[in-house]
């Protein structure tokens, strides 16, 4: 997917002016966070589970090479294949070669953010292979030629009416010429249209929520069951997953699943949890003949051992964006690439470059709500601040900001000078603002006064001026 993260500020303007998006976001903000809160409250050990989930991921990351090789050994022993993809281009090539090896014309895909990351659909289309999204949200945005706006709810930016219009436009040629208005009817129509595509697909491609080293299994959770059709019906199943998805054992998976669904949707468990462990065995009634796992690095191993390593704990639940007031204001598309919200603000600069994505870690108030709900306790504000430090070191911080900061810092490090200057500022602001109590516009403060009045200080001087005067009095 082509990044527009550099145009973040323009994207924000578009997002704020989009009434459909704002309507969708107003529902998302309340719904997800309320359901997550209730789910967490119902489970007394939830906070302890978050600690365990964090520890499991930390242990795995500290021994990532070991667990990845263990996973590979197990997959091979099961009769499957593991492909190592250092870059996005490698992963695209590997998957294209696999598809061509079976003469594939269609690929049934269940939702995979890593597939978005490597721009797989565009690549397959160029080769004349049709990727068919089978997750309802992904299917909707595929019809609309839009990128996902959320990592677990890719079409969350759309209203029901927009979906109805999209279905009418695209399904009319299949004989569905009635505009539907009920949610259930829309789902039923999509289910009907997609069912035949599952049956026709030559290859099923899925992502993975976890890769289990001790069994060589890939694990998927969905609420639609579409992944199960993607990986059992076609003759080849390709799992595309990034390297940090590996975990040691099924026992660990049980812990992570318990925090994942609650954090994501407030469910105790997703409707479908599926383990794929190798290809169809002799005597099995169904299952794929070939089972391939493509392990994508794409810059992640470069994060290991750095101050950013903690982002690799992320299990892609979406809680950080569901609770982020910035995401809640502008939605996912404004972030300009695959991963939006706080986790995206940390991961995107790593994957597409900090020059391209410099706005993302800056567009945060550091309110800390993301960290407070992260199931694996990633200190997202701290990691965003690390990006700001790297930008500052590399002189990527905008010049006006740097100059302003340098001036402020010069004064702030000289308490005497600071007192004199603040006394003058206080006096001027108080003198001219006293009559109204506030300013409707102020030189050099347009960013503030465009939308807000600026409160004027009352007469009498700064606190320190008044304190000093009071002390001198007998």
């Amino acid at each position, binding site marked *: 997917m082509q990044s527009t993260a550099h145009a973040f500020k323009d994207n924000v303007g578009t997002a704020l002016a989009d009434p459909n998006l704002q309507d969708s976001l107003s529902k998302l903000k309340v719904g997800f966070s309320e359901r997550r809160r209730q789910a967490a409250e119902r489970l007394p050990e939830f906070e302890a589970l978050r600690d365990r989930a964090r520890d499991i991921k930390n242990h795995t990351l500290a021994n990532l090479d070991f667990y990845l090789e263990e996973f590979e050994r197990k997959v091979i022993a099961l009769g499957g294949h593991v492909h190592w993809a250092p870059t996005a281009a490698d992963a695209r090539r590997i998957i294209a070669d696999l598809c061509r090896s079976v003469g594939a014309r269609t690929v049934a895909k269940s939702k995979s953010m890593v597939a978005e990351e490597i721009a797989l659909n565009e690549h397959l289309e160029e080769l004349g292979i049709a990727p068919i999204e089978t997750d309802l949200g992904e299917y909707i945005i595929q019809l609309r030629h839009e990128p996902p706006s959320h990592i677990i709810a890719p079409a969350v930016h759309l209203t029901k009416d927009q979906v109805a219009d999209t279905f009418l436009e695209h399904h009319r040629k299949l004989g569905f010429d009635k505009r539907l208005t009920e949610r259930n009817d829309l789902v039923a129509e999509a289910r009907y249209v997609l069912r035949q595509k599952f049956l026709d697909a030559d290859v099923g491609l899925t992502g993975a929520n976890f890769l289990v080293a001790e069994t060589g299994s890939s694990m998927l959770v969905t609420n639609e069951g579409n992944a199960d059709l993607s990986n059992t019906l076609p003759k080849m199943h390709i799992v595309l997953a990034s390297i940090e998805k590996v975990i040691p054992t099924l026992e660990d998976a049980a812990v992570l699943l318990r925090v994942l669904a609650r954090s994501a949707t407030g469910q105790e468990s997703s409707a479908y949890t599926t383990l794929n462990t190798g290809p169809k065995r002799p005597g099995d009634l169904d299952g794929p003949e070939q089972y391939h796992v493509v392990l994508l690095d794409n810059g992640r191993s470069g994060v290991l051992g750095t101050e950013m390593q903690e982002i690799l704990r992320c299990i892609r639940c979406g809680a950080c964006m569901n609770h982020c007031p910035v995401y809640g*204001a502008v939605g996912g598309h404004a972030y300009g690439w695959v991963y939006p919200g706080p986790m995206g603000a940390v991961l995107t600069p790593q994957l597409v470059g900090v020059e391209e994505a410099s706005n993302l870690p800056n567009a945060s108030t550091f309110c800390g709500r993301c960290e407070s709900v992260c199931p694996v306790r990633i200190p997202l504000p701290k990691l965003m601040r690390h990006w700001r430090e790297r930008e500052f070191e590399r002189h990527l911080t905008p010049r006006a900001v740097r100059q302003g900061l340098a001036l402020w810092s010069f004064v*702030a490090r000289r308490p005497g000078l600071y007192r004199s200057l603040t006394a003058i500022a206080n006096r001027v602001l108080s003198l001219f603002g006293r009559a109204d109590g506030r300013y409707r516009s102020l030189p050099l403060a347009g960013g503030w006064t465009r939308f*807000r*009045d600026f409160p004027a200080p*009352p007469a009498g001087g700064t606190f320190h001026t008044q304190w000093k005067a009071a002390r001198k009095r007998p």
Partner: protein
Amino acid sequence: MVAGVSNSSGNHRSPPRRVALFVTCLVDLFRPAVGFAAIKLLEEAGCTVEVPPLQVCCGQPAYNTGDRATTRAIAIQVMDAFEGYDAVVAPSGSCGGMLSHHYPALFDDQPALKARAENLAGRSHELISFLVDVLGIKKIATQYDGTVTYHDSCSGLRELGVKEQPRQLLGSVKGLELREMKTPEVCCGFGGTFCVKYPEISNAMVGEKSADIAATGADTLLAGDLGCLMNMAGKLQREGSAVRVRHVAEVLAGMGDLPAIGEPETGAR
């Protein structure tokens, strides 16, 4: 109005603690009354309060812009200014959190400075939580005639656990009725320099906050951080709202009759 504080036993704690007030830049420049309110509350709780003269800023503008060198220099200045006091108290969760949660990690590679930073961190507190959690103040004998709603400023809430303490003290104020917002814990969109770097997003956030405030029907908005208060006051006033905005310390200290934030002074017009 008569203000007075009482702790669990009804007596002031003795011997009085030697407390340094960290005024904070915004209080110093825009709302000195908050500093005086803090001193009053602390003194009535039995503390001896001093205002170290060499204090300036906690360094957050540099810290949150990624300028670690300047942040460290300012942190050292703060450590020097507040050396030797039993406690350092700020009428702000944001500045208090900077001292108590962020300073030590600035000096991971300098053990001597890290030890000093940890020492300061251990002595640093946000005002209201200091009154309740450290001094054991349970109620305050004062009056404020109004319905108030309380905004939980982010750093105080999530870094320092300031949530029940202000509500507990406000609950003891005569004449005061507290009406909660639907989402008092959601950020108001201030975020320091964020509000001028991303004004459109900040405006969307504070617009939602002002709607939440209006829906409570409260006539007064309180919070524990002046940055958030100025942001919300500025938005409410731009929208023509009649809600008055004050720092929680002012109300607790019996200074609730001062002109609210952004209001003209009596007789100035």
